[in-house]
């Protein structure tokens, strides 16, 4: 078996190959509610007995973690103590919430130690949707928007630079939009799939390795920021990339897997050293005794903290598509896009399709939300009958707002309204931005002028693009 996840240097918690998603056999009641939300049937076991996860099939989306309601009860003494379980789960010892059977490997403990190291230059980036969900962990209503408090909290946690994955989303649009235009013009390797959802990428590598050339070669926004942190911003700040600790706060458990991929390094430095989830960030804020609700609003740092509305909407399904069309339209027609708000693309679980007139071209697009819907499209692509040019795939039911690392709900009956509120908050945030197109973000213009040159240029290829690998069962077992 090939070693797919390289050992992390200096990591005490993460074993060599950590499947990231776990089911605690002492707590699992075998209700199989997790299996009913798993998009790839990775959960096996008899009803009424503890379940197991098939790590090969599992795409690490964490939907099972969101669904599991079996918790360690106060009255029933489990074999391992709470403190021991927290340690095994990589969580800080101050965590008070109940322990559930399904969980993801935590990196809060490891990050807490690393943040105390004065010798390291500590840089953090936050995904678009952390700012619309983090406040729920402090009892505020669903979808409360707190980018300023989030930046302030991260500074108080001892980060030297607070950057934003939204900036990476803007870079992604520049690269992916240009790639799409190139592919449509040449008619090659169409349809093109988005590649920013790591769970979708892992799924494609596992079940459709022969179609990998249809994926955009772009790294995800998180990895792009990671690469720029250890090059561009290291240069701006005058720090040695080897001294940088690059951290990402993500709504997604699979981002932990993505960050550990061997190819995600630039000039020998891992692009993102540690990934924590929205829930883990909240736990660290509480651990440090920070009064989140009363924090002042603080700005993100420059240059990787300035973002457009297009970067913001990456967190909702259809968002990548909408952002790409805003930029692609103008790059192709050299005209201003008539309507910025592409409502026909916005929606939830399932497949949505649309046709967008861009100059002479009728661009056919599809948005897939929920991995279980992708197989029909993959079949069409394999047969050569797929009518679309560009397909966005998000593994989670409503995109990153519903990611496996997001705040976990106590009542299943509130899931719809929680996702709805988080999504409308994202769109509101976009609507309130002065700059709403990636290519008009001044920090993006400057990045290309000073550092990258042009989209798909030499520097871009080196830093921002990648290759995907087959993980078909046959090869993995050999």
């Amino acid at each position, binding site marked *: 078996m090939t070693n797919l996840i390289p050992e992390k240097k200096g990591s005490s918690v993460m074993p060599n190959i950590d499947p990231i998603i776990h089911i605690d056999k002492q707590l699992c009641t075998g209700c199989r509610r997790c299996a009913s939300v798993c998009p790839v049937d990775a959960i096996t076991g008899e009803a009424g007995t503890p379940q197991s996860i098939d790590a090969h099939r599992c795409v690490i989306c964490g939907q099972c973690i969101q669904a599991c309601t079996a918790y360690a009860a106060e009255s029933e003494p489990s074999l391992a103590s709470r403190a021991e379980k927290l340690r095994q789960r990589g969580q800080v010892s101050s965590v008070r919430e109940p322990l559930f059977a399904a969980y993801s490997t935590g990196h809060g403990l490891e990050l807490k130690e690393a943040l105390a190291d004065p010798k390291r230059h500590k840089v953090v980036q936050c995904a678009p949707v952390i700012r619309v969900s983090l406040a729920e962990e402090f009892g505020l209503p669903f979808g409360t928007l707190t980018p300023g408090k989030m930046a302030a909290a991260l500074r108080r946690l001892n980060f030297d630079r607070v950057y934003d994955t939204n900036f990476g989303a803007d870079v992604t649009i520049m690269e992916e939009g240009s790639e799409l235009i190139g592919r449509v013009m040449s008619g090659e390797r169409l349809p093109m799939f988005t590649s920013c959802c790591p769970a979708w990428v892992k799924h494609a590598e596992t079940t459709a390795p022969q179609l990998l050339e249809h994926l955009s070669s772009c790294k995800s926004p998180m990895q792009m920021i990671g690469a720029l942190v250890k090059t561009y911003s290291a240069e701006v700040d005058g720090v040695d990339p080897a001294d940088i600790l690059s951290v990402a706060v993500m709504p997604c458990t699979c981002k932990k897997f993505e960050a550990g991929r061997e190819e995600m390094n630039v000039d020998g430095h891992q692009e993102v050293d540690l990934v924590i989830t929205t829930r883990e960030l909240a736990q660290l804020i509480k651990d440090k005794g920070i009064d989140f609700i009363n924090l002042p609003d603080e700005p993100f740092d420059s240059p990787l903290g300035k973002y457009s509305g297009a970067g913001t909407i990456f967190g909702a399904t259809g968002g990548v598509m909408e952002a790409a069309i805003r930029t692609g339209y103008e790059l192709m027609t050299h005209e201003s896009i008539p309507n910025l708000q592409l409502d026909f693309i916005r929606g939830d679980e399932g497949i949505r399709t649309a046709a967008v007139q861009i100059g002479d071209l009728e661009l056919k697009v599809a948005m897939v939300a929920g991995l279980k819907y992708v197989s029909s499209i993959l079949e069409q692509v394999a047969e050569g009958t797929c009518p679309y040019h560009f397909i966005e795939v998000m593994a989670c039911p409503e995109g990153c707002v519903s990611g496996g690392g997001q705040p976990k709900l*106590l009542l299943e009956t509130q899931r719809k309204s929680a996702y709805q509120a988080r999504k409308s908050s994202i769109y509101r945030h976009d609507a309130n931005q002065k700059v709403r197109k990636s290519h008009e973000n001044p920090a993006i213009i400057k990045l290309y002028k000073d550092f990258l040159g042009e989209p798909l240029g030499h520097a871009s290829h080196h830093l921002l693009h990648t290759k995907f690998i087959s993980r078909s069962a046959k090869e993995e077992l050999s």
Partner: protein
Amino acid sequence: MKRERPNSFVIAEAGKCIGCKACELACFAVHNQDNGVAASVGTITMPVLPRLYVIRSDSFAMPVQCRHCENAPCAGVCPVQAIRQEEGAILIDEDRCIGCKACAMACPFGAVSLYKSYGNGQEIEQPYLKEQQNGRLERKTRIIAYKCDLCRNIASAANTVSEETVTSVAVDQSGRLTENGGGSLPACVSVCPEQALTLVSPILGESRSRTAADVGSLRSLRL
């Protein structure tokens, strides 16, 4: 004039229950809004103390909770009259409860549990009773009896939640966290993914016929 109508209660169909404990979690959530418990798991700072318990054997699982007995034996043995009947439900006045365990011993269903008492998410200490701990005398935490109250009195707890929170977490007029902001089903009933739980309200013809198989004996009580 007193009207004699049987008390409502929630009952489970053992064949349907998959043992997920979602009902326990929901029961805890709606009863602890004044302990800071909001919509997300991360807001919990105390142990999960539900008022119903999923019991399991090799062949089945099902939750057990208070049947709101017509001649409630728990009320009969409570030395401080902390247990009373109110609008078709048997309720424990948690402020009065002295944690004597008499009700727990009298309950034929094992529906009463004794646990630490919490306020603002912190253990409540007793003013007088102390115990030797870590080599010194410390005030003992208050212990009280908990049991199903059919989600009554949730409104008062929800009063501490802001207007905005109330709408966002789908809390109905009386402050109950509900399924879709509309009805007022008990929390456990509304979250069960298998519809294994039913609120039996003997005065409602519909519920009575729907659950006739489970509660046939109630027919004789029809008024």
